[in-house]
């Protein structure tokens, strides 16, 4: 297939936008910056779709475009090459699309509260993020992928700390960076391992070699995959490295939507799916992925129940949903995992943008206890938010239902009943806390100040338009992957991805339909029931009961509630376990090693020099004749030496 538009153009356009806005933005004015920022991503989206539409419609075989050799050292070489295959096509499609709409949204959201310099900086970073994310997604080898990986991490750091004059935002950025470094370290180790095993970091060569001779590499791959998974855990905020994501909400809300919900955090899932060939050969690593995913899902879900900050709830929800995705990957259902990545991108972006709209209307207020009754004031926001909530809760026929059902079905199918139980409970939990959020925010009566009430207004079209678009996709997005029970050939999503994401060998060996139609219907019913149960409970407690029941529960179990409200005190635990010891260690290094040892050696050296100088300076008589004499004595010594030598 001859490509009219080269792949490199897709990341290059946002890069150009970044360069223009980053270097000239300050002087160009907000309108120009918006045009460049949104235009660059819009063009990139258009370029991407110009490639993707024929790709989706026609031949699905992978295309690799080699752009330039990058560097070469010894036996190692890396090149700048881009890959278009179903997996990267899927990622590119929603990254560009969602990214574009979030850029549009940002124009409305950031317009009023920032200086021209800050505005330009914001769009520059956002464009840079798009560039890095697309590099990550389109890379043909691990090295280039790592560039994108680090690039998105950098942009995440920059954008979390966007309000850098506020201490908590700067701290949050730092925290995200440090925690991500741990994961990146794992990723690097994994890359080193891969290179030592395969002498290459090119996707094709690594995966072909691994698939060709599984027995040879399998023993080492467990460790390598665990290392790679550590990278995914960091980037995708899984237990135990999830702590940075809730704090990352310190950044502007569109950033939370784009980076910390829809795209960057799913990079870990993407990476695991990309390496499915390797993970498949390492069952222990797969098990770890599944367990971590399930634990994260339920752990974050529980925390979300007790949060009052609207963005924090969504953040924990994101962590929880990411756990779902890893759970799917862990049981080998990579397609289901990627399906959830896709639908999650739509509804979670929609939810974040909706929350942004609410915060915008409330003049920066994020505490749900001061909201309520916004339904009539923000109708578009309310309805789009409701649709996205139903989607995440897993109510059919919305997008979330299908992806979540696919995951649950796969888990059950693989006989992981404990994990299935956890996942099912999480599904109910999800519905509960999401409806708690909707109820507290939009239902009932307004609980904020009169000032805020007076200020309430629907957001401008630039913000509502993305909401509507994403809500529609949250509604219909799941229909590309209907389960088998609706008909044999309706699951186009699986068909599209299966050349890349083969089901587990063990599952493939088993009889083709793992579950009977009846069992599948039953499972579907159970998950829907769990969702509805959570939904109804939340409505009854928070809409009709005005929140009295939860208050009573909280009063009855103060310790448990406090624990929950304080997010299981994970941060404090980490503080105790890691931060304090490191702090102490650093202090020791400073006070003992640096001040006493190093400075001591230095000062001792200086003192010695001074001492010797003090003694030797008496040779410095200032009398030229003494110098001449010593010169002469040296000459005699030299002569004696020469004579002796001859």
């Amino acid at each position, binding site marked *: 297939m001859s490509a009219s538009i080269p792949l490199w153009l897709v990341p290059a356009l946002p890069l150009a936008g970044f360069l223009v806005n980053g270097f000239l933005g300050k002087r160009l004015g907000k309108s120009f910056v918006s045009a460049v920022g949104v235009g660059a991503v819009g063009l990139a989206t258009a370029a991407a779709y110009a490639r993707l539409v024929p790709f989706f419609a026609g031949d699905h075989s992978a295309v690799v475009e080699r752009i330039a050799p990058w560097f070469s050292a010894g036996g190692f070489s890396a090149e700048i090459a881009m890959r278009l295959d179903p997996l990267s096509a899927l990622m590119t499609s929603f990254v560009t699309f969602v990214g574009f709409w979030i850029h549009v949204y940002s124009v409305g959201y950031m317009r009023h509260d920032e200086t021209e310099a800050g505005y330009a900086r914001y769009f520059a970073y956002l464009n840079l993020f798009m560039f890095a994310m697309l590099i990550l997604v389109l890379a043909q080898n691990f090295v280039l992928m790592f560039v994108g990986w680090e690039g998105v991490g950098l942009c995440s750091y920059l954008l979390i700390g966007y309000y850098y004059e506020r201490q908590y935002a700067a701290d949050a950025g730092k925290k995200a960076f440090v925690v991500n470094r741990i994961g990146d370290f794992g990723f690097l180790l994994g890359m080193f391992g891969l290179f030592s095993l395969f002498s290459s970091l090119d996707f094709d060569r690594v995966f072909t070699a691994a698939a060709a001779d599984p027995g040879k590499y399998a023993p080492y791959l467990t460790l390598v995959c665990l290392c790679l998974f550590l990278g995914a855990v960091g980037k995708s905020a899984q237990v135990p490295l999830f702590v940075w994501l809730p704090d990352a909400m310190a950044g502007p809300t569109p950033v939370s939507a784009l980076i910390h919900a829809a795209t960057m955090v799913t990079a870990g899932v993407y990476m695991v799916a990309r390496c499915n060939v390797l993970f498949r050969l390492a069952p222990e690593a797969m098990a770890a992925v599944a367990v971590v995913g399930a634990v994260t899902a339920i752990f974050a879900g529980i925390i979300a129940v007790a949060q009052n900050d609207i963005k924090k709830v969504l953040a924990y929800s994101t962590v929880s949903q990411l756990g779902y995705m890893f759970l799917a990957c862990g049981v080998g259902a990579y397609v289901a995992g990627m399906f959830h990545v896709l639908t999650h991108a739509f509804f979670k972006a929609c939810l974040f943008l909706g929350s942004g709209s609410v915060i915008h209307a409330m003049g920066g207020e994020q505490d749900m206890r001061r909201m309520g009754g916004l339904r009539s004031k923000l109708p578009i926001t309310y309805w789009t938010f409701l649709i996205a909530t139903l989607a995440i809760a897993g109510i059919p026929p919305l997008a979330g239902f299908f992806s979540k059902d696919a995951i649950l079905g796969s888990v059950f199918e693989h006989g992981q009943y404990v994990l299935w139980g956890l996942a099912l409970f999480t599904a109910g939990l999800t519905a509960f806390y999401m409806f708690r959020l909707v109820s507290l925010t939009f239902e009932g009566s307004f609980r904020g100040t009169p000032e805020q009430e007076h200020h309430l207004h629907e957001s401008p079209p630039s913000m509502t338009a993305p909401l509507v678009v994403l809500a529609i996709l949250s509604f219909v997005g799941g229909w590309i992957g209907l389960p088998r029970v609706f008909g044999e050939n309706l699951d186009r999503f699986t068909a599209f991805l299966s050349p890349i994401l083969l089901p587990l060998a063990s599952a493939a060996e088993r009889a083709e339909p793992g579950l009977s139609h009846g069992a599948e219907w039953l499972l579907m019913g159970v998950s829907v029931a769990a969702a509805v149960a959570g939904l109804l409970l939340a409505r009854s407690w928070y809409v009709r009961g005005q929140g009295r029941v939860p208050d009573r529960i909280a009063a009855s179990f103060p310790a448990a509630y406090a624990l929950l409200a304080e997010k299981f005190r994970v941060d404090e635990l980490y503080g105790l376990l890691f931060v304090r010891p490191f702090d102490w260690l650093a202090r020791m290094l400073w006070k003992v090693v640096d001040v006493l040892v190093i400075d001591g050696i230095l000062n001792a050296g200086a003192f010695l020099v001074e001492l010797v100088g003090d003694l030797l*300076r008496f040779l410095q008589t*200032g009398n030229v*004749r003494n110098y001449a*004499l010593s010169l002469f004595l040296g000459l005699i010594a030299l002569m004696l030496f020469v004579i002796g030598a001859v």
Partner: protein
Amino acid sequence: MIGSIPLGDVLLASGALFTIGLAGALLRRSAISIFLSTEVMMNAANLALIGYGSAMGSREGQIIVFFIIAIAAAEASVGLAIFVALFRHKETIDVNKINLLKW
């Protein structure tokens, strides 16, 4: 001219001259005297160079001496200018009294 001057004579003269210059440089106190002594040493070297050059049938010795003399001229002019400047400040050119660089 018929060569009948032994190289030893030349070298002896050169060595004696050098030693005398050296003695002057070490024992005199007046900066100008020391300077003169170094000139003597330089000329001792010149004599040896010419002697060796003649002994080897080469003119390069003379070339080197030519250069040395020119450099000596440059050196003398700058050196004497320094003495003049020094004398203006210290009112003496006795090197024992010029010891600003003492420890």
